[in-house]
């Protein structure tokens, strides 16, 4: 199971992503710069957190139009796994690989703290967790307020595509949504950071089963 981590100017969690992947038993991922037009032969692509292109225009907007994102879309179209965390989630919505948009936190504050979440139902990324498992992942975001039209929200709920929900809504997200998958279930976007909850020194290892689900 080989993997790649996409790096934009302003990404800052790519090494945390790589460490979480190796701690879960994956081989060290290839870091892929945003100007690349092709991905190496991989099964899993992670889009890490950070502030790609300084969040100019909208968070993730410029990054989503990068050359590498065409290759990521092709990979997802072939059924390859894609995980976008935080800014990576914003990039995936801007790239229309996931529906909806992530807007400014309702309280206007940058949120930087551990957040309690519920794993909604086991999927390709979460089958190592029990149903309705409770986890704590750290969050660090200013634009995590998930918005989608009523039809989209109904579809996400009805198709079981809400992967993670906040147990105490910190940012105004519709339906307490912290993470969603695409229709095929091979693309996951998530605001809090599972890759920063994989070692005892992090204060929580709740994120490790997510990476073990991918590499198991």
């Amino acid at each position: 199971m080989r993997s790649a981590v996409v790096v934009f100017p302003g990404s800052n969690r790519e090494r945390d992503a790589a460490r979480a992947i190796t701690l879960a038993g994956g081989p060290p991922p290839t870091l892929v710069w945003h100007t690349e037009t092709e991905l190496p032969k991989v099964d899993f692509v992670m889009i890490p957190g950070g502030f790609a292109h300084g969040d100019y225009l909208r968070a993730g907007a410029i990054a989503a139009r990068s050359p590498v994102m065409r290759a990521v879309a092709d990979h997802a179209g072939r059924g390859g796994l894609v995980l976008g965390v935080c800014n990576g989630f914003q990039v995936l919505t801007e790239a229309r690989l996931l529906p909806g948009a992530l807007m400014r936190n309702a309280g206007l504050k940058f949120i930087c703290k551990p957040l309690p979440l519920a794993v909604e139902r086991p999927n390709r990324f979460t089958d190592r967790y029990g149903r309705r498992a409770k986890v704590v992942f750290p969050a660090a975001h200013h634009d995590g307020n998930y918005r989608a039209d009523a039809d989209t929200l109904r579809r996400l709920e009805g198709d079981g595509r809400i992967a993670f929900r906040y147990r105490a809504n910190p940012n105004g997200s519709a339906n307490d949504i912290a993470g969603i998958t695409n229709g095929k279930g091979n693309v996951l976007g998530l605001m809090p950071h599972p890759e920063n909850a994989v070692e005892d020194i992090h204060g929580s290892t709740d994120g490790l089963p997510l990476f073990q689900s991918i590499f198991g």
Partner: protein
Amino acid sequence: MKARVIITLKSGVLDPQGKAIEGALSSLGFDGVHSARQGKVIDLELTATEPDAAREEVERMCEALLANTVVERYHIDLNP
């Protein structure tokens, strides 16, 4: 040809920055404000000289990048 693109949140989309502006205006004693909504303006200088072609091109720019039509709408003013 110059174009000004005005991007605003769709009605019904919560605008926390607009709410903060409302609160600040109210605290300054401006009691006559029902609501405030914040948007952005992007000024473009185009090589196009023909208005219809220019508008069509800027619309494509809005759809491709400038606006996120999930939550935003855009308005284009041309200034030949």
